[in-house]
């Protein structure tokens, strides 16, 4: 569906994407994971065929965005980071008019708009102005709108940023259904739980490059231990204490507010820490997540 070789994007002197290779297959959910400024959105805009490629090769649905932009965009659904809805139109017209931009005929547009209102669970708001919708509803409308042309490939840039937990789960459920219906999803996110929930495969991007690639499980297995012991001490003590526990795990990360000790047996680590007479204010043993992978690969946390 998407094939990129040595893909680059620069804005003047600034190189946002510094040569990445990506292959997205039909029917999978593919993620771009990384902190803000990693080059995810620039990559997404190039895939969406609205941003000219600065270097390398990009093929979307077998076509070249430089020459076949309109044909590619006709088969894409794009859900941008900010809800760019048409505030001057009603909820229904947002779907209907958008469909007309694709050249879909009136009757089909009306029918699709009605179905998508149902899908987004906002049928009762059909005649309302966009402004009167809640954040979650706007997001669902944006996603519904991106489906008006039955896209082969759906691009979602930070789909759940700014939503409350409940709204996120509703959205995840809907995206999961789309995936089951055979739509290929490409998602950018800086939430590791979102990536773990939704993505079959993902790449971790950092500073315009791909730091790692694989399924969430593979990445965790390859770059982290099975479990993590989180130890919280008093303010400013973490750096000093790190030296006293580093032999207890494979690796220790010092965060401003806690220590992370990587080990396959987290409980044993906590027991050993207490045995040494150290007194953490709080402890937590959990499974490794993608955030740990990211920390390992880039030395930074995802949500920065």
């Amino acid at each position: 569906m998407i094939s990129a070789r040595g893909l680059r994007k620069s804005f003047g002197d600034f190189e946002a994407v510094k040569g990445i290779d990506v292959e997205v297959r039909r029917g999978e959910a593919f993620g771009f994971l990384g902190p803000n400024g990693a080059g995810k959105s620039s990559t997404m805009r190039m895939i969406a065929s609205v941003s000219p490629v600065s270097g390398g090769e990009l093929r979307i649905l077998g076509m070249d965005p430089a020459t076949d932009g309109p044909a590619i965009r006709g088969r894409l659904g794009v859900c941008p980071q900010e809800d760019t809805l048409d505030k001057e139109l009603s909820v229904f017209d947002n779907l209907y008019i958008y469909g007309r931009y694709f050249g879909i005929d009136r009757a089909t547009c009306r029918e699709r708009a009605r179905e998508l209102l149902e899908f987004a669970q906002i049928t009762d708001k059909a005649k309302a102005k966009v402004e009167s919708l809640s954040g979650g509803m706007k997001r669902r409308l944006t996603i519904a709108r991106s489906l008006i042309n039955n896209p082969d490939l759906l691009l979602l840039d930070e789909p759940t940023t700014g939503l409350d937990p409940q709204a996120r789960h509703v959205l995840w459920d809907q995206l999961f259904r789309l995936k089951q219906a055979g739509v290929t999803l490409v998602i950018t996110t800086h939430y590791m739980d979102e990536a773990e929930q939704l993505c079959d495969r993902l790449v971790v991007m950092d500073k315009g490059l791909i730091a790692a690639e694989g399924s969430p499980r593979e990445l965790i297995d390859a770059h982290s231990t099975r479990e993590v012991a989180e130890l919280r001490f008093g303010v400013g003590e973490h750096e000093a204490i790190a030296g006293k526990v580093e032999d207890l795990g494979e690796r220790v990360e010092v965060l401003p507010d806690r220590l992370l000790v990587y080990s396959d047996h987290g409980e044993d680590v906590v027991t050993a820490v207490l045995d040494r007479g150290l007194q953490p204010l709080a402890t937590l043993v959990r499974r490794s997540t993608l955030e740990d992978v990211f920390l390992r690969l880039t030395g930074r946390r995802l949500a920065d």
Partner: protein
Amino acid sequence: MALLHEIPAPLSPAAATRVLVLRNYVVYKSAWKLFVTGFLEPVFYLFSIGIGVGQLIDTFEFHGEAIPYAEFVAPAMLATSAFNGALLDSTYNVFFKLKYEKLYDQMLATPLSTGDIARGEIAWGLMRGSVYSAAFLVVMAVMGLTHSWWAVLALPAAVLIAFAFSAVCMAVTTWMTSWQDFDKITLVQMPLFLFSATFFPVEAFGDGVLRWVVEATPLYRGVVLCRELTTGVVTWESAVSVVYLVVMGIVGLLVVRRRLDRLLLT
């Protein structure tokens, strides 16, 4: 969900323009009252100055023919209504869509191109200006201010004026960065309105450079063209005005397209 059995081909340029006009039409369908004020403004000027002030003025000479003052002012208001109508949509509304609503970014996520957007928006501005002018022309005819069958052509002339200004104003708007910049538009709009031989003949500027400058401004070309058509005194100058306005509109359209490429396809 109903599946689209075939992927519709991207719209032709003409069809894309129609869809964009449709979008604006749907927005304004519920706000038609905004159109009334735009129509009334030149009518008020016609009554207050053309007819009110006109009672103090005998006749004016236009291309060697004496015409009553109201007949002098009316075609100028016709041109101005096209000018104002086009200006409204292609400045404030375009700026809002471009910078705040990010409407064009939404459109570019679909098969639409920057050329489609340029054409669609200019077509809409043109239509708005034309609607004002058509209504005004009816008022003129009813009041007996048209004196020739040439006056029928004043409508396409007004459409041309609306096209030229819609295109150029939209082009200028792409360089705007904040709402304060619109003061500059007002700063150009007012003198164009007052000094384009709208209320007094261009001869009042004497025979110097000033007159040449006025004669080279676009609204003057539009005003004179309309006046020539409604009074029936068509000359070679009419053709100059037509070419002038056509070129102005096409250049504006091309500039808009290039600017949208630069601003949006980054």
